[in-house]
C-alpha cells in the first residue's frame, strides 16, 4: 500500500510535452553554462555576460586562490626536500653560522623597537610584510589604508606552525596587538581588491628581532 493514487494518464504530461521540455531544458542548460557557470567557476567568459554580472570576477578570484594554494603546497614540498638536503650537506653550515651571527646580534637588544613603513599596492596585487619574532614577543600595531579599502591577513608561520591573528577585508584601518605564538615570521599579507592604488601605512612597536620584507 502506498500513500498515493496511481497517476491518471490524463493528469500526466504527454510524451510530446515531455520531449519538448527535455529539449528546452538542455538548451537552457547550455546557455546558463556558457553565460553564468563557466565565468563563475573558471573565469571562462566567451560572451562577456559573466563580466557584466560580476561572475567572472568570482572565477578569477577562485582561480587565483587555487594557484596560490598550489604554490604554497609546492613550497612546502621544496622546504621538506631542503631540510633533507641540509641534513646531508655540510656546506650549509656556513649559512647557519651566518644566520646565527646576524640573529644573535639582533637578539642582544631586547628593548622596544619602533618602525614605520609605507607600501603602495596596485589593484589585484598583493604584498607581504613580516617581523621575525620569538615566541612570547609582543607587538602593538596600527595599519591604515589610503586610496581604497584593503584585505589583510595578520598571521605567523615558522617552526612548523602557522596561525592567523586577525583577518580583515574592505578595511580602512586596524589597531591592536599580538603575541607571537611561536618562533618565526609574523606579519601581514595584504591584497588590494579595490579599484585604485592603495597606500598602506604600518606602524609597529614592541619586541621583535628584525623586519623581513
Amino acid at each position, binding site marked *: 500500500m502506498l500513500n498515493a493514487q496511481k497517476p491518471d494518464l490524463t493528469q500526466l504530461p504527454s510524451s510530446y510535452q515531455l520531449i519538448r521540455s527535455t529539449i528546452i531544458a538542455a538548451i537552457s542548460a547550455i546557455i546558463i553554462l556558457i553565460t553564468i557557470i563557466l565565468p563563475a567557476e573558471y573565469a571562462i567568459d566567451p560572451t562577456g555576460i559573466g563580466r557584466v554580472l560580476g561572475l567572472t570576477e568570482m572565477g578569477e*578570484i577562485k582561480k587565483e586562490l587555487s594557484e596560490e594554494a598550489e604554490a604554497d603546497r609546492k613550497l612546502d614540498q621544496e*622546504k621538506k626536500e631542503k631540510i633533507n638536503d641540509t641534513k646531508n650537506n655540510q656546506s650549509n653550515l656556513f649559512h647557519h653560522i651566518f644566520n646565527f651571527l646576524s640573529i*644573535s646580534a639582533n637578539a642582544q637588544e631586547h628593548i622596544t623597537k619602533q618602525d614605520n613603513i609605507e607600501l603602495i599596492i596596485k589593484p589585484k596585487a598583493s604584498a607581504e610584510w613580516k617581523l621575525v619574532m620569538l615566541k612570547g614577543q609582543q607587538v602593538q600595531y596600527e595599519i591604515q589604508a589610503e586610496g581604497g579599502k584593503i584585505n589583510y591577513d595578520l598571521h605567523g608561520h615558522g617552526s612548523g606552525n602557522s596561525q592567523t591573528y586577525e583577518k580583515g577585508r574592505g578595511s580602512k584601518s586596524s589597531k591592536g596587538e599580538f603575541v607571537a605564538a611561536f*618562533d618565526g615570521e609574523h606579519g601581514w599579507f595584504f591584497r588590494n581588491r579595490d579599484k585604485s592604488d592603495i597606500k598602506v601605512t604600518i606602524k609597529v612597536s614592541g619586541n621583535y628581532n628584525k623586519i623581513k620584507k
Partner: protein
Amino acid sequence: MKLNIKIFIFFCISVLVFLESAHAHNVTEGDAGYIQEIWGVHVVPFTYLGAKHMVTGYDHILFLFGVIFFLYKFKDIAIYVSIFAFGHSTTMLLGVIYGWGANAYIVDAIIGLSVVYKALDNLGAYQRWFGFQPNTKLATLIFGFIHGTGLATKILDYKIAEDGLLINLLSFNVGVEIGQIIALVVILILMGFWRRLPNFMQHAYSANVIMMFLGFILMGLQITGYFVNI
C-alpha cells in the same frame, strides 16, 4: 651557562627561519575563499552561489524529490514547494542574522532523517503502523525549518562581510529558490517520463525504499562526522 642556552636557542631559530623561507598565507580556496575576499553588495554572485548550493546539495534535492513524488497536479506541487521554501527561508535568514550556528553534523543528520521520514510517508508506513496519516504539509514546514538551519550554518561558515550582508543574504536566498526551481524542473521532466510507464507504481515502492536507504546513509555519514570531528 644561561647565556649559552640562549645562544643555542637563537642558533636553532636562525636555522629554522632560514629553512622556512617565504610562505604566502593560509589560503581558503573555492567559494568560501571568494566570499572571504570580497565586501559590499554583490547581488548576482550571491544569487549564483545560493542556486549552486541548492542544485549541488543532494540532501535538499532528495527531500524535494520525496515531497513531490506523488504530487501530480501543478497546484499541489506549487503549494508544497512554497511551504518548504517558506520554512527554509525563515530559519536561514534568521539563523544568519542572529548567528544561530547549530552544529552542522547534527543538523545534516536531521536532514537525512527528513529524507527517511518522507520516504516512509510515501510508502504509507505511518498509516499501516499507527493507523493515521501525519499532516504532510506540517511535516514539510518543520523539515523546511531544519533545512534552513542547515543552510544558515553553512552560510555562517562562509564568513560573509558585514558590509552588504543583508542584501547579499537576500540574494543568496533568492538564488536558493531559483536553484530549487531548476532542480524541480529537472526532477519533474524525468518523473514525467517515469510516471507514464505502466509499472510506475511497482517502481514507486522500490524507489522510496532506495530513498530511505540514502537518507540513512546521510544520517550515518553525519553522525560519524560528528564524533570524528569533535
